[in-house]
């Protein structure tokens, strides 16, 4: 199994295949289709992450010392972005999620989603995922 760092490096490599941002976003959207989603009837308000223009629901599971995430959004790019995070965080120990550097976001040029604008919720997503992990540290 890949390490936390290797998983991030793999994403960076994937993104380097495309020059055009539209293609990068197509890949992000496709990733969003692959994650374990939360069907509409299973979504609840306490799963909602605030600070996103679109709505994001996040559910976590802690199994055999590792964290697992389920997520959904009414915007498919947002869902793709959270899929990227899940790709990196899924199956990791809570300590890793809380402490290790999440460097891939800047490297793939998604840092605009990290700016404190009200339009996107990447900051809120990362924070919520880390908070969930912190409960098990």
């Amino acid at each position, binding site marked *: 199994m890949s390490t936390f760092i290797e998983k991030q490096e793999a994403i960076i490599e994937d993104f380097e295949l495309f020059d055009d*941002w*539209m293609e990068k*976003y*197509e890949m992000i*959207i496709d990733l969003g289709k692959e994650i374990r989603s939360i069907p509409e009837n299973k979504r609840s308000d306490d799963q909602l992450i605030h600070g996103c*223009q*679109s*709505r994001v629901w996040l559910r976590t599971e802690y199994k055999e010392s590792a964290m697992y995430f389920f997520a959904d*959004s*009414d*915007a*498919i*790019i*947002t869902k793709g972005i959270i899929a990227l995070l899940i790709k990196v965080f899924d199956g990791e120990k809570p300590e890793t999620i809380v402490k290790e550097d999440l460097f891939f976001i800047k490297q793939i040029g998604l840092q605009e989603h990290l700016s404190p604008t*009200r*339009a*996107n919720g990447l900051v809120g997503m990362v924070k919520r995922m880390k908070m969930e992990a912190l409960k098990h540290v």
Partner: protein
Amino acid sequence: MNQTPDYIQELRSKFPILKTEVHGKALVYFDNAATTQKPLEVIERVQSYYNSENANIHRGVHHLSQVATQDYEDARKLIQNYIGAGKESEIIFTKGTTDSINLVASSFGGLLQEDDEILISAMEHHSNIVPWQLIARKNKLTLKVIPINRNGELDMETFETMVSEKTKIISITHISNTLGTINPIKDIIKKAHSFGAKVLIDGAQSIQHGKINVSDLDCDFFVFSGHKIFGPTGIGVLYGKEELLELMPPYQGGGDMIKRVSFKETTFNELPFKFEAGTPNIVGGIALGTAIKFLKSIDTKQAFSYEKRLLNYAEEELKKIDEMTLIGTAAEKTSLVSFNVGKIHPFDIGTLLDKQGIAVRTGHHCTQPLMDFFNIPGTLRASFAFYNTIEEVDVFINALKRSLSILK
């Protein structure tokens, strides 16, 4: 028809930022309802102020202070003249529309008593809702909301039944920032006055799209932001009828707004300074004056009517797209178009448009009650100014189609 006239190209050339590239693409700036771009003369005025005039105003005996004071007060005159106000003292400089409304809600609203009624409409920006909610809660006032129809027009029949002797103020937007609807404010003002109620017009969106004459409108208050009329951010205007401003207590205390201060009693300065506590946004006021001068130097009648052309063309082209829903289809509309496509989230489309160099706004546009009314999470809003071109509309439509092909 489908070509941008030369006079627009000429106007456009005065706005340096419009030559910017975004993500390697020529910027298409369709977020003019959020803020307008600045002509070179406004930008240069900010610089020349700091280069050769910077001083604090109204107090200094020295040369620079006198120059800065003169320029600031000249800007006030320019604004007074531009919006047709009777007196300079009726022009209060504020931080912007929101600040102006808060001032009136607090100072005028503070004079109201239990069970007095305030009317707003269902299409108001949060800035014209929340200040009234605050004073309503504090003074036990009743806040009533004029409903709208599915086209995004005020329900005037219901409005007629809502006004009464209890109504003390109607605070309403001239043009909806989300729907583009132009409200029949003259009728509203007449009706309000027949019951002795005052009217505040939120001119944030109308100031950049047409000539305003507050005397002709006979509104009691008119508010707008400098940055939406090609001026700087952080400066705005409250026009108020003198007799009302005299009646209202100061909003904030501090320098400039006083006549004499002692620990026992403080007397307040005369209008407009009574409402201008602290060092104001001097350069903002002066450069707003420059923006007004710019508008006076161009053929605004021609420019504003061209905006209608942009709107019509954009709406025509948008309607050709499958599953297109236009939000805001009032008979009287300004040059902005709000829409959704199928069930696609506006954030998704906005993100992809941005990567193609197109600046539009997505979300609830600070009008959440309006989103609830239409039962949508938000819209995409493209808002045009006279420096936008027909060709930009084409670029936008093509980029939109490309985005949709990815998202569908």
